[in-house]
Structures are given as C-alpha cells and as structure tokens.
C-alpha cells in the first residue's frame, strides 16, 4: 500500500466559480488539505479608488450575479456610516425585503440544484430532475419568487439598479407590491415543503466544535444590521471588526484567508446565524426547526441544507410581514445624502455569511480606499479543516469515491468562489536585477 497518496480534484462541480481541491495523505493520515481558488483576481478594491461613493453599490454588485444585493447593502450601509446617515423606517423595511428576495433565490438555487443531488445520490440536478420533477419544479418556483422581489424592488434580478445611498431611486407604491403577496404565499407553502424534504435526507454523523461568527440584532434575525458576535463571547460593534479579524495571503489561493485574532479559524454563514440567533426566530420557524429535527442548535455542516431551508421559510414570512404593513406616503422619496470626508464600514448577512465593506472617502466624495471581505473568503480555512476531518474517514475508498466525498464537504458551505477573489496584493522582488 502506498505511504503517500495525493487526491486532486481539478474542477469543483456544483459550486459557483472556479476552484479545486488538493489533499495529501501520508502514512495513513491527511497531511495537507487545501482549497485552491484560481478565479483570477478581480481588483474591485483597486478600481473603486477614485470613483464616486455613489457608484459603490452598482460597481460592487458586479462582484456576484447570485448575491448582488448583499454587496449593495454592505456598500450603502458602509457609505452611510461615513456620513452619519440613518435610513428611514420605510427604507429600512424595503432593504430588508430586498434581502429576503436574495436569500430566497440564492438558498433555493443551492438547496435544490447544487446540494440536494449529494444526499440523493445523483451527479447533478439534471439527473435528479428525472426522478424528482415536482421537487425541482418547487425549487424553480422558489427561485422565481425570490427573483420577483428583486425585479419589483431592485429593477431587475441580476445586479439590481434601484439601490442607492440614502435608499432607492424609485420607491414602489402599494399597488406595485401587491402582486408579490400571492406569489409569496405560494412560496411560503413551497418553503414549508422544502424544510420537510431536506429534513428527510440521510445525514452523516459529523459534527465539529466550530467557532461561529455572525451579526446579532436586538430584536430580529439579522440581515442588514447588528453587532458582530461569536460563539466564544465576542460582542462588538461593526467598527471594531478589523481589530479582531484579519486577512492573510496564502500561496495556494487567489482569495485571501481570514482569521479571528487570538481565536483562529471561524465559521460564517447560515449555521452561524442560526446558532447565534435562534432565540430571535419567530415561533413558526422554531416549530418548523423542531419538526425537522434540527432543534435550537446545529453543528453538522451537512445539515446546513435544512438550515438554509428554514431561512427560505423565514424570508418568505418576513417578506409577507413587510408587504402586509407597507403603505408609503405618495410623496415619499429617498433623501439625497450629502457626502463628507471620512471613513466608515458595515457588515450585512449575505446568504453565505457576513460580508464586510470598509471605505475611505475624500471631501470630493471620491473613494480613496476600499476593503471588501466576502463570506467565502472567511470560510476558506474552516472548509479546509472540514475537508481534512471528513475525508480522513474515507481513506480506504478508491480515489474516485474519495473525491466525491471531498466535494460534498465543500458544497456544505455553498461557496461563492468568484466573490472571494476580490483583491490580490502583488509584490515583485527585483533585488536580483538591481544587484546584477
């Protein structure tokens, strides 16, 4: 038997973006587990410099076509933080509604088309659709419902165009939003079925002692606002995020890694939100969670598919609640925000976890620096740890089957690989040329 074995998966299937896995086994143990992201660096932080702060929401939304709202929300909140601007309750509700739309469509895509095939033994959604057509139809219905919110409120579902600093370019009337009510009532029924369906999947017995990090709000499940909390007691305003978390460059990935200073590797995303904010969920969601067997906490990353299903249900109910009470004054419009020199930051909960934006703006309103830390970047280290722990159980399998097990471990995180490659620092060593 070989003492050293190398497993390489050159292209990860059913994840967004381009990445690969590298696993080295030595003397029967895993000596190295790496998630290699080879999406080209995208330099958004660099080309934001010199642009007006007003362009930040539209430019950063181009980072991702699946979670553009997350980038827009983190951008507007970070810019408004610089100017000390507080959005009105109406704008706050609409922003939450927009985020509900994104959670629904992003989670539905992941649950039905990317993750479910793993549990049911299919190579992909196309094969699964042959045996589970009603279920796939239900997933498409949910995605369409989420997109309907984005189209109505954002102007379009991919890279919405109605979001700006201060609020929205156009505030919808009550008549505009009413068609969404029936769509979301049907989506809510589909979401309930989604929770029941995912709860029936066969799950491996796999739990680790994760250090979860998420936002926490005083009285609602977090989306746009809150403090940064962790499972080991951290509770800080967003302004202090960079004092506690830092990015590191690694040689095997074009995406920067993140660490929690003093604590190490951490885990952001739906499981983190759920574990740190379960008490803030409405009774209906807690009941669904109880019926699904998840309960008030979950440390099995494979069961993240149930937690995402619960978040779809939550987003449907939250959206309906907002729509029910929505009644804007016909004369209401979002204020223009006057810019001042300064710096500010914000974190919002993208479907995949906390998304940090920081900007520094000069007195002409031009961006001098930008820092964007997506959730998938932050989860790279914990994904690699999971990979090592999970794959270590299956070293007796032939390479092909072991590869499949490795991919499953990564898909638990619904990684958005093209989001995570936002900036690469380039250092050129010319010392040998100078000395020549």
């Amino acid at each position, binding site marked *: 038997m070989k003492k050293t074995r190398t497993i390489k998966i050159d292209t990860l299937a059913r994840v*967004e*973006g381009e990445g690969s896995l590298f696993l080295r086994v030595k003397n029967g143990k895993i000596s190295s587990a790496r998630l290699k992201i080879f999406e080209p660096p995208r330099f958004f932080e660099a080309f934001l410099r010199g642009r007006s702060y007003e362009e930040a929401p539209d430019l950063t939304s181009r980072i991702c*076509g699946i979670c553009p709202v997350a980038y827009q929300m983190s951008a507007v909140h970070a810019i408004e933080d610089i100017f000390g601007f507080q959005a009105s309750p109406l704008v706050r509700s609409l922003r939450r509604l927009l985020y509900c739309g994104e959670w629904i469509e992003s989670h539905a895509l992941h649950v039905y*088309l990317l993750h479910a095939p793993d549990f049911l033994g299919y190579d992909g959604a196309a094969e699964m659709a042959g045996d589970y*057509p009603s279920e796939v139809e239900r997933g*498409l219905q949910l*995605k*369409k419902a989420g997109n309907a919110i984005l189209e109505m409120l954002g102007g379009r579902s*991919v*890279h919405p165009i109605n979001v700006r600093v201060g609020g929205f370019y156009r505030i919808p009337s009550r008549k505009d939003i009413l068609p969404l009510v029936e769509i979301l009532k049907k989506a809510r029924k589909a979401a309930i079925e989604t929770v029941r369906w995912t709860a029936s999947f066969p799950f491996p017995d796999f739990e680790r002692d994760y250090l979860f990090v998420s936002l926490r709000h005083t009285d609602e499940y977090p989306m746009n606002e809150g403090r940064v909390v962790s499972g080991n007691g951290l509770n800080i305003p967003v302004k202090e995020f960079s004092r506690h978390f830092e990015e590191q460059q690694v040689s095997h990935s074009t995406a920067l890694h993140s660490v929690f200073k003093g604590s190490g590797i951490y885990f952001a995303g739906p499981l983190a939100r759920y574990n740190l904010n379960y008490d803030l969920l409405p009774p209906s969601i807690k009941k669904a969670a109880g019926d699904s067997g998840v309960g008030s906490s979950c440390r099995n990353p494979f069961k993240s598919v149930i937690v995402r299903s619960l978040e779809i249900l939550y987003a449907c109910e939250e959206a309906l609640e907002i729509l029910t009470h929505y009644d804007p004054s016909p004369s209401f419009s979002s204020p223009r925000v006057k810019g001042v020199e300064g710096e500010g930051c914000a974190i919002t909960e993208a479907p995949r976890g906390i998304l940090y934006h920081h900007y520094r703006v000069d007195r002409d309103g031009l961006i001098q620096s930008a820092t964007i830390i997506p959730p998938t970047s932050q989860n790279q280290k914990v994904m690699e740890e999971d990979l090592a722990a999970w794959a270590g159980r299956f070293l007796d399998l032939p390479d092909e089957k072991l590869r499949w097990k490795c991919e499953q471990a990564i898909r638990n995180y619904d990684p958005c690989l093209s989001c995570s490659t936002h900036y690469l620092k380039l250092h050129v060593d010319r010392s040998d040329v100078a000395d020549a």
Partner: protein
Amino acid sequence: MPDLVREPVRLIGLGNLFRGDDAAGIVLAERIRREKIPWLEVLLHYGDGASLIPLWDKIKRVILVDAVCAGGTSGRLICFDLQKEAFPENLFSVSSHSLGIPEALQIAKKLHQKLPAEFIFFGVTAERFNLGSKPSFNMDSLGDLFVRRIKTQLANWLDPKEENRCTSLRS
C-alpha cells in the same frame, strides 16, 4: 412579411456586458429589439441557467442567443434546433455561475412540458471572456447578419422552406 396574426415569439439574449465577447447575446438581442417586429418579444437575461427556465415556460416559440466557445474565428454565428439536435455541451466551457445553459436545458427536458415546441439557439463564437475586456470582434457588423438570420427564422415559422431551416454551424 405578410401581415397575419402570429404565434408570439420570445427571443432571449444572454450574457454579460462586462466580459468581452460574453456581451454578444445582450448586444444582438438589443439590436433585434430596435427592428420593432410586432410579434417578437425580446428579453435580456444576465443571470444563471436556473432562472432561465421560467422565461421560456409556456411559450411555444423561443430563440436563445449567447456567446459560445466553438473554436476558430470569433464573431461567427452558429445555429441549433434544440428540439431536434443534441446540444454540444462543450460550447460552454466557461461559466461565471453555477448553472449554465446546458444544465438548464437538461433539467427542463426532465420536467413536465418545460421546453418550447419550437426552440432555436443562436451561438456567437467567442474567445475573450475576461472581466473588463473589450469584445474581440465587431458586434455592429454581426448585428446586421443576425437581423437577417432572425427574420429568416421568423419567415420559416410562417412558411417552412428547406433553405430557411436552421442547421448547425451555418453562418
């Protein structure tokens, strides 16, 4: 063309305006939209394949247009009848999202009545997809050819003739 009541046709242009040749589907769809053909509805789609399926649901005649990786010179127009021909999946080796057109087509085929009765795909051969890059060919001149091909296809649906039939790799 004769002024008759026609079955509505939906043309969906797919792509990304910021990724070089990947803008082709969007640019050509906007070009045909300017012709203002009354029974032709033009949609632009920037997203993933999963959200594409509802766009052709319950529509009898659909045309898709998108950039493809077919090798050779970029800026050529190729055509497939998606109801009659197997769709070469290697045309989409590049995708910035998790579900592309081939996957969407496969899923739709498995679902009940999820493919249009008349379903044509126009591919624009492409070579450059980097974010922020300019197209590698002149899209304006291709637009004129595209308009002629679309009008031919629409005429064929009104009055099927062998010379108007969509065949693969003909540009």
